[in-house]
């Protein structure tokens, strides 16, 4: 299902309209929450009002738990969701500048827009400051650029660095948030009676239920298994069965033979031998790679076969001695939602029968059966070619046979 934009479900033009609508409501909610008042915003720094902290934590937890459940239900593929890369030192310096600006000006960029739009003078001056800052940064980008792009750690995720699951990290954040809410409410109550908050007899039951609910959701998020990327695209057994009844997965022997004879013209073909390594070593088609059936599901092989790039071979053909093993490989990938794999019809046995066991005496001569004559000629030439009667087999680029060995070492303490 999602993400909607990268998958093209929402076009990139309509994207901006949605952004506009979302932005409108974001501003509306900021204003309604009182975030257009700098007094309220900077309260978090002076300790008399922690509503900013609570709102941001609540927003983060809602989005986090929601995304985890969406991922589990198969509504969103979390691996496609863009995560900003971490530039460690630039982020620290930028964060510090932003913090100073927040305290001095009393707004953060988003809230200053909301405040300016309801006519607050200080926010308008703050906006001029933002524009000035943007201008100065832009003018000096030349010599700032090196620092700006330094210490890039890529799209790191905290839970991966900690070595825990997504859900467990969510639960941890929920607990941290609840503790922070409790402590900040205490501080707030001590400092000023005006902004007193926290548990009162009036809202005791309400807060109790809310805390229980979010903890239950957090625990569920921590225990449900993470939907792997593979499982996200998985098709149902009915769909798989339907595909099994369809013969469009079979690539004809002629097609494979043509590829072997003209490897330069058909560079998009990749032959994958799913037999055992022994059988592969005894004989394999030129240019084929060997991935024994049992190794197909290893993560490395999946990455190798599913890698998408422009010069990647998009016609991947499994073969074995006949169709039995190759069909299993095809079913494996079809179940996982990939439909760009094919099976060499009849396997090597049929290859030999079809190319080499043609009958000299049954040469079609009647010009009406043109296709039959073409087929006969192709087989004759192909068999002569493979037996080396006319010319030498070109050593194509693909004739070295990469053997894939799977060595995985996992461990720890």
């Amino acid at each position: 299902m999602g993400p909607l934009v990268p998958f093209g479900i929402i076009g990139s033009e309509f994207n901006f309209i949605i952004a506009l609508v979302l932005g409108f409501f974001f501003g509306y909610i900021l204003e309604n929450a009182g975030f257009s008042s700098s007094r309220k915003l900077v309260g978090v720094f002076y300790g008399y009002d922690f509503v900013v902290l609570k709102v941001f934590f609540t927003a983060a937890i809602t989005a986090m738990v929601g995304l985890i459940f969406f991922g589990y239900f198969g509504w969103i593929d979390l691996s496609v969701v863009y995560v900003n890369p971490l530039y460690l030192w630039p982020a620290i310096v930028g964060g510090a500048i932003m913090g100073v600006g927040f305290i001095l000006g009393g707004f953060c960029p988003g809230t200053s827009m909301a405040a300016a739009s309801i006519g607050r003078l200080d926010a308008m001056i703050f906006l001029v400051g933002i524009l000035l800052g943007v201008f100065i940064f832009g003018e000096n980008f030349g010599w700032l650029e090196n620092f700006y792009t330094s210490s890039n750690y890529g799209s790191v995720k905290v839970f991966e660095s900690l070595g825990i699951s997504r859900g467990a990290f969510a639960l941890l954040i929920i607990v941290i948030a609840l503790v922070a809410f409790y402590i900040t409410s205490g501080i707030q109550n001590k400092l000023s009676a005006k902004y007193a908050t926290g548990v009162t007899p009036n809202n005791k039951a309400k807060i109790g239920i809310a805390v229980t609910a979010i903890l239950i959701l957090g625990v569920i998020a921590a225990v449900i298994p993470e939907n792997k990327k593979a499982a996200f695209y998985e098709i149902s057994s009915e769909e798989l069965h339907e595909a099994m009844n369809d013969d469009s997965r079979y690539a004809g022997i002629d097609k494979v033979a043509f590829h072997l004879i003209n490897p330069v013209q058909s560079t998009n073909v990749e032959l994958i031998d799913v037999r055992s390594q022994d059988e592969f070593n005894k004989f394999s088609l030129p240019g084929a790679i060997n991935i024994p059936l049992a190794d197909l599901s290893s993560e490395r092989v999946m990455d190798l076969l599913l890698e998408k790039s422009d010069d990647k071979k998009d016609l991947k053909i499994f073969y074995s001695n006949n169709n039995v093993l190759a069909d299993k490989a095809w079913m494996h990938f079809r179940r996982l939602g990939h439909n760009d794999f094919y099976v060499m019809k009849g396997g090597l046995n049929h290859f030999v029968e079809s190319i080499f066991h043609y009958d000299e005496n049954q040469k079609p001569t009647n010009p009406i059966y043109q296709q039959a004559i073409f087929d006969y000629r192709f087989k004759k030439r192909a068999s002569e070619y493979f037996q080396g009667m006319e010319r030498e087999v070109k050593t194509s680029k693909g004739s070295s046979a990469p053997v894939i060995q799977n060595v995985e070492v996992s461990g720890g303490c």
Partner: protein
Amino acid sequence: MKTNTLNNAALAFTVIMVIVVIVSKLYSEDYDVTSENAIEMAAGEEGMSLQELYATLQSGEKEQYLFVDLRKPDVFEYDHIKGAVNIPYSELLAEKHRSAFDNDKTVVFYGKDEVNSSNAWFLLRQLNYDNVTYLHGGFALANKHIIKNYHPSYGHFKAGKPQYDFAKYFKKQEKPEKQEVEVKTTIEVSGGC
């Protein structure tokens, strides 16, 4: 006080809905076997050899097996293994045939060839059924050389075996050992303190 009750009810409703959806998803799992495990099973499954079929038919101990004929009904009517039930390949998942698999007999698929029967086995194996297997070769071969007229040389027939000496046909092809064999080895080390 009224809004409080409303809020609480809404909250409780949301939580219950999430739990219900999760539980229902846990129990409506389509495949019972992960794709990783399934492909390992496919590599390890032996199937039922024609020799075993012969022994079973001879000894008359057919009760432990349920033969399932995957061919079309008209071909099935014409001839089939005695005691077999007909479930055409295209109706494999039909609800009305499910009861055939839900017993403690070993279900042996056979069809027009081994590709069909082993594919049917692989599909059913990925669902709940671990009492399924498939017959080597197709019905025509088994009928001719095992059931009608036993010929021991067919006892170990398996479609997946090479039927020819392939290397013989590709004379001028350089031998694989002469080629530069690129060994891609990746060592993944995970873990640590």
